[in-house]
């Protein structure tokens, strides 16, 4: 398998211990990791925090149809976002929704983590577009499940170069 640039994962968790753990797990799997401690910091990093009613079409000059063309300085190259559910301020669910509403990031796979096994919560997150829901403590076997989602994303990006129509599942 050809590995070009490393996959970049954005990890969001208010617990410093869980951040350290997820960072280590992800790095062990050869991913590049950026870890932040809140949903709002994550949005800031992604460049989504500027305008609540923001017109993202204003950000950068790239055509709306091909979001994976070189990012402007506001957007960030991110292949997967993994976030804790229960955080003060913005929950992982709120973050998930904001990401799915974003033109640039809506195709980035999002994974939710939670220490509590609440079926209705899990369903809600998956319905909102989360790819996976991990129960904490997260383990290496969980992180291994991320690879197919990341590869799918990369494959999709490469196809987008030749065809504008993305198959949205």
């Amino acid at each position, binding site marked *: 398998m050809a590995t070009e640039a490393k996959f970049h994962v954005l990890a969001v968790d208010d*617990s*410093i*211990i*869980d951040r*350290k*753990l997820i960072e*280590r*797990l992800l790095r*062990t799997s050869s991913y590049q990791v950026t870890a932040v401690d809140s949903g709002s910091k994550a949005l800031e990093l992604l460049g989504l925090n500027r305008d609540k009613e923001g017109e993202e079409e204003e950000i950068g000059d790239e055509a709306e149809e091909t979001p994976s063309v070189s990012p402007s300085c506001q957007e960030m190259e991110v292949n997967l976002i993994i976030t804790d559910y*229960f955080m003060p301020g913005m929950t992982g669910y709120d973050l998930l929704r904001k990401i799915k509403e974003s033109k640039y990031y809506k195709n980035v796979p999002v994974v939710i983590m939670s*220490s509590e096994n609440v079926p209705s919560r899990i369903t809600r997150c998956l319905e909102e577009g989360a790819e996976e829901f991990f129960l*904490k*403590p997260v*383990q*290496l076997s969980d992180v291994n499940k991320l690879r197919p989602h990341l590869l799918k994303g990369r494959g999709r990006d490469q196809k987008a170069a030749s065809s504008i129509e993305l198959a949205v599942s």
Partner: protein
Amino acid sequence: MDQRNQFHRQVALMRQSLFDQGYIDEQFVQLEELQDDTNPNFVEEVVTLYYRDSARLIVSIEQALDKSPLDFNKLDSLMHQFKGSSSSIGARKVKAECTQFREYCKAENGEG
């Protein structure tokens, strides 16, 4: 050389007894497995963070316990954090105590 081996054995025994007495669990082994040559101090770093974080949480919990009437929501939220980090490093006994504590919070049982 003998002394070193002795130390190694002692540490191994201490570690085993922590498992046997239910202080730590499986998750701790996961942490140990994440330690390697590129991250030789991983376990130590995580445990250090945990102690620091726990100390901070305990102070907040004690402050919350001093208030009257008790803010059970606040206490529950703090315990949720404490339970979460304990679970993440495999601190089984602490995690069990947290769970118990939260039961009391839910029942608004100040005496507990």
